[in-house]
């Protein structure tokens, strides 16, 4: 009814407007546009927000929370922002982004004393967080290896599929998660690597696999790298949690370092969303290791060519924060402490959740909670069990049984354990 009234108002304002409206509305260009499916993760948070229960728990959230369940802005970030306040330069960054930020970021992934960096063999550009880095790489892969496919682990972060699909790169999958053991299906994974055609492109999670939290061991990484050499595969690492997984950035980059030692020319997406808490700032980096400096310069120029018609050049603020922090030894040390603090809290909650479940006398094994690493825990619960958690206990998570440990606090861990026990105790 209100709709009709408003249309009437429009008509009174101008006759040609009404005629124009009639002409245009009869054609209605966008009628064939269907509503997009709801984002599975956003839906969880929406439902959580709408729930009035005082006991509600949100373990769907993909962002770090402190022990009070509050979002955190790191102290090193606040200090960096104070220092850059009043910045008198809003000029466009170069297409490749902040040179300083990229330099510091490469050191994190490749090592402070990396020869690759010294020899300028890495083509690297600032990217729109991890998503943007993956997308740039996918577009680059499409343009320069047009016949290639991407092998993606099962399961993976849902957006990986969207990214390579929108880049028009065909996808294959490889075995990764082993539901029975809630661990890595290493044998099948190796089979898939061996059976893939030589020279295939693989997407690997460098650490803290999302959504399972299951990472290969160091020995397993070495075998994977070896097999990649045999097959001549290309390794693309998505590293979204460096420092955030174990608390030690060097340790979290181990998989990459193993591949580099073996001489692989890798690609790598890095993100500061979690480890520096810069989620909304969209800061990340895409790097591609090349044979020599000349090639790196060429590849970088092509990455810039891809970025130009997407966003021209990347946003400044987050990059300034990162380079301010990493460029100052004291701030960098503060960051390392804070990152370790976040990782430690998560590890502590993993231990607490597992101990609580064991204390309750659960018939199931829960040691995967502490074996898995990073923000997420693949609990092994079924969608039906998850639904019960939500309906009966007001606990919100994604239906694949993924728990965001960031949402677990000393205040709610016992409640959470009890609820999980209730819905799983019958086996």
């Amino acid at each position, binding site marked *: 009814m209100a709709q009709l009234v408003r249309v009437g108002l429009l008509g009174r304002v101008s006759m040609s407007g009404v005629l124009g409206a009639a002409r*245009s509305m009869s054609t209605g260009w966008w009628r064939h546009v269907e509503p997009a499916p709801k984002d599975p993760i956003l839906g969880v948070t929406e439902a959580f927000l709408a729930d009035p229960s005082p006991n509600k728990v949100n373990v769907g959230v993909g962002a770090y929370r402190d022990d009070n369940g509050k979002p955190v802005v790191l102290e090193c970030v606040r200090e960096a922002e104070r220092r850059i306040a009043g910045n008198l330069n*809003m000029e*466009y960054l170069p297409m490749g982004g902040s040179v300083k930020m990229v330099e510091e970021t490469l050191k994190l992934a490749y090592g402070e004393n990396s020869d690759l960096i010294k020899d300028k063999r890495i083509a690297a550009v600032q990217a*729109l967080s991890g998503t943007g880095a993956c997308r740039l790489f996918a577009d680059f892969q499409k343009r320069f290896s047009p016949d290639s496919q991407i092998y993606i682990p099962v399961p993976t972060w849902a957006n990986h599929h969207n990214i390579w699909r929108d880049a028009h790169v065909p996808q294959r999958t490889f075995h990764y998660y082993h539901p029975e053991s809630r661990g890595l299906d290493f044998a099948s994974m190796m089979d898939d690597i061996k059976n893939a055609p030589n*020279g295939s492109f693989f997407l690997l999670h460098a650490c803290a696999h999302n959504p399972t939290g299951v990472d290969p061991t160091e020995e397993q990484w070495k075998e994977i790298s070896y097999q990649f*050499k045999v*097959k001549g595969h290309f390794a693309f690492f998505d590293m979204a949690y460096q420092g955030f997984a174990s608390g030690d950035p060097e340790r979290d980059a181990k998989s990459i370092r193993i591949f580099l030692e073996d001489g692989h020319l890798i690609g790598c997406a890095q993100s500061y969303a979690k480890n520096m808490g810069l989620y909304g700032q969209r800061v990340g980096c895409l790097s591609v290791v090349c044979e020599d400096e000349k090639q790196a310069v060429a590849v970088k120029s092509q990455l810039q060519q891809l970025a130009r018609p997407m966003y021209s050049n990347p946003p400044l603020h987050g990059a300034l924060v990162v380079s301010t922090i990493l460029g100052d030894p004291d701030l960098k040390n503060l960051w390392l402490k804070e990152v370790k603090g976040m990782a430690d809290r998560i590890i502590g909650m993993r231990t607490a959740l597992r101990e609580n479940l064991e204390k309750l006398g659960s018939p199931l094994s829960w040691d995967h909670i502490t074996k898995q690493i990073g923000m997420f825990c693949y609990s092994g619960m079924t969608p039906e069990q998850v639904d019960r958690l939500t309906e009966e206990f007001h606990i919100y998570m994604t239906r694949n049984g993924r728990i965001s440990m960031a949402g677990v606090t000393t205040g709610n861990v016992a409640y959470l354990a009890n609820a999980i026990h209730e819905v799983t105790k019958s086996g």
Partner: protein
Amino acid sequence: MASAILPLSSPSRPLRNDLKANWKRGTSNRTFLRKDYTKAKQSFTRTRMTLAVEVSRFNDITMAPPDPILGVSEAFKADTHEMKLNLGVGAYRTEDLQPYVLNVVKKAEKLMLERGENKEYLPIEGLAAFNKATAELLFGANNAVILQQRVATAQGLSGTGSLRLAAALIERYFPGSKVLISSPTWGNHKNIFNDARVPWSEYRYYDPKTVGLDFDGMISDIKAAPDGSFVLLHGCAHNPTGIDPTPGQWEKIADVIQEKKHIPFFDVAYQGFASGSLDADASSVRLFAARGMELLIAQSYSKNLGLYAERIGAINVVCSSSDVAERVKSQLKRLARPMYSNPPVHGARIVANVVGNSDLFDEWKEEMQMMAGRIKNVRKKLYDSLSAKDSSGKDWSFVLKQIGMFSFTGLNKAQSENMTNKWHVYMTKDGRISLAGLSSAKCEYLADAIIDSYHNVS
């Protein structure tokens, strides 16, 4: 281009350990690499041992062509001549030729710092307060399209990112439909549609004879295109020519677009920056919206709020109903998610704070008038200098008629090169100068350069 496969079995492992013993200890990122012997190689000061062959997948990649505009700035920097002038720059400069961060931006950032807001992800469609503010700025808060909730707005990565989202929407929902772009237009428009796989063709726009608008050519080409094409229009301050249609001409353009059932697609990168008035600069868009047409509009805050580096803009799709707008918005999100997941928060907050605070908003309007005013002043001074110094009787009034940051001088490639080589005036080869990079102090010098290049070079 598959890498050669070595027969790697366990004997190679002790070999590797041996090799390792010869290198320095410590965390080593030594790479072992054998090059293809048929390729020319750089010489290395260290011997490299091979464990396995790794020939890059991307071996055949050549250097991308240098960006035509960036190249100008680089050459300018390298020039040591005291009278050098950088008129390639697409960013506003003060009379002292310094970059300018608006006062309202500094104040907004200060407020944001004091508030200590968090850095959580924005929703995929961006900051709600920003989206509301940007649509209201464009249409006017009481415009029917706003009141009827018929606009799907999503925050985008400045103008480029917003255009790209729209291009992706066109590709997905109107496969095969063409976008008509003006000849000439901003260089990156073609890249955007190419990379989004949207076919495009050009409509006549610039008339070198008059250094003005080829209106008949424009109308004719828009008429000749297949029905239901998308017509890319610059809302104000056409880039690179500075030539805008008159209000009467806009009406005729709207007529022919409706006749052909085309969809207007506005690029609004200079609202407020062109004339100094936010409303005046939006009049073309509002004219089309008032006819009840569905349209696409990309916005940017790079110039009018000086937020170049923060990449803040929006894509707006005016639809026939609020229900359609909801659906379109959901699909814009679906396109954005695999591009960057959600847009950067900093620039959005600045805009929302400036527009949402009436003191800051008023101050912003003043600063915009100041910037637009300076540009108008140098246009006038340049015109006066040209008229005074050029005895040929050539009509230079097009300089005054053009609007915005850029001006098409009418100089051809050779003449533009003369500007640079002889006069150390840096500009793009299409004859475009950026008035944002011109100071009043240098207007006379520039006039001399233009007169010389025009008359003495062909």
